[in-house]
């Protein structure tokens, strides 16, 4: 055989300082999503992940990392930077949820409006977006995904191993329950 096989595993370990995390650090299962805010499949996965989180409670730690494919999704990069700008003000998950709940409006004007609605320091938000302050972080997420074998969005990892099955609620739950056992 001339094929080179490699296992698709999370190349960048989860860091409580660096990563955006919901759920306890000592949860028995960790689910990582590499996602793109403009990707319709990620939009479809969003309520499924919410459902999985609700059903697993504090048994699950959920981590989101950026994987904007700007070739296909021209607004994805700025949307990711907007979520990171919200994170800089301690409001990542609110912006994250808002973006997935308003996926069809992701122009710069929309992002500005969402930041206002969330009550962020808007001058800081606008200037960080204009200067691409969070661009390097988004790229770092993206490259960590590439090195982990992310091949499209969304890509999930269950306890560090790529989940190559469907990401509907029941399949995802089954995989997480199995990893927990």
């Amino acid at each position: 055989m001339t094929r080179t096989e490699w296992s698709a595993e999370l190349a960048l370990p989860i860091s409580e300082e660096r990563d955006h995390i919901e759920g306890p650090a000592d949860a028995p299962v960790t689910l990582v999503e590499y996602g793109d805010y403009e990707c319709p499949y990620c939009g479809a996965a969003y309520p499924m992940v919410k459902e999985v989180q609700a059903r697993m409670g504090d048994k699950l730690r959920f981590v989101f990392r950026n994987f904007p494919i700007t070739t296909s999704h021209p607004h994805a990069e700025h949307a990711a930077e907007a979520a990171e700008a919200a994170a800089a003000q301690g409001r990542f998950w609110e912006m994250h949820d808002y973006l997935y709940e308003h996926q069809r409006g992701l122009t710069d004007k929309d992002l500005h409006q969402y930041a206002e609605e969330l009550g962020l320091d808007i001058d800081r938000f606008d200037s960080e977006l204009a200067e691409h302050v969070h661009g390097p972080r988004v790229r770092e997420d993206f490259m960590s995904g590439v090195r982990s074998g992310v091949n499209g969005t969304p890509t999930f990892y269950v306890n560090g191993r790529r989940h190559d099955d469907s990401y509907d609620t029941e399949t995802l739950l089954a995989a997480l329950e199995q990893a927990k056992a």
Partner: protein
Amino acid sequence: MDLANDSAKATALAPGTEAPDFTLPSTPDQSVTLSEFRGQPVVLVFYPEDWSPVCSDQLALYQELLPEFQRLNAELVGISVDGIWSHLAFAKDRNLHFPLLADFEPKGEVSRRYQVYRSSDGTSERALYVVDADGIVHWSYVSPVGINPGADGILRALEELESGVTR
């Protein structure tokens, strides 16, 4: 995801094999010859068809990574049996800025020489080759046709070449 097609998968040319030279059209009046890239690594991306969902995701990812490939001094080309006008429309629609070569006449000839032609479907396999600066296959991989192989294998192979690792 369709994993069922895995059984009939081809075996690509092994590392150390001389990569067969070829000339294929990239536009109606331009062509690309593999040996013209001597002196730098080349990534050959064989894919089944323009417009199919997995191909689009896979090629969009490579477009996104062009700066990384450039940093590693590598050229990247896509190859499928589609004709040149399909390639042009596809590249424009999907924002792809690397050459897509038409293995169209005689159909699939280059894919056959690289042992990645699927005669059952009349298309190429979803296969990756990294050819070194001397025109020798450094790494090859055939993915299940429904699975996007991502880019980590390509980047690893290119980094090996850059650091002088031979196989």
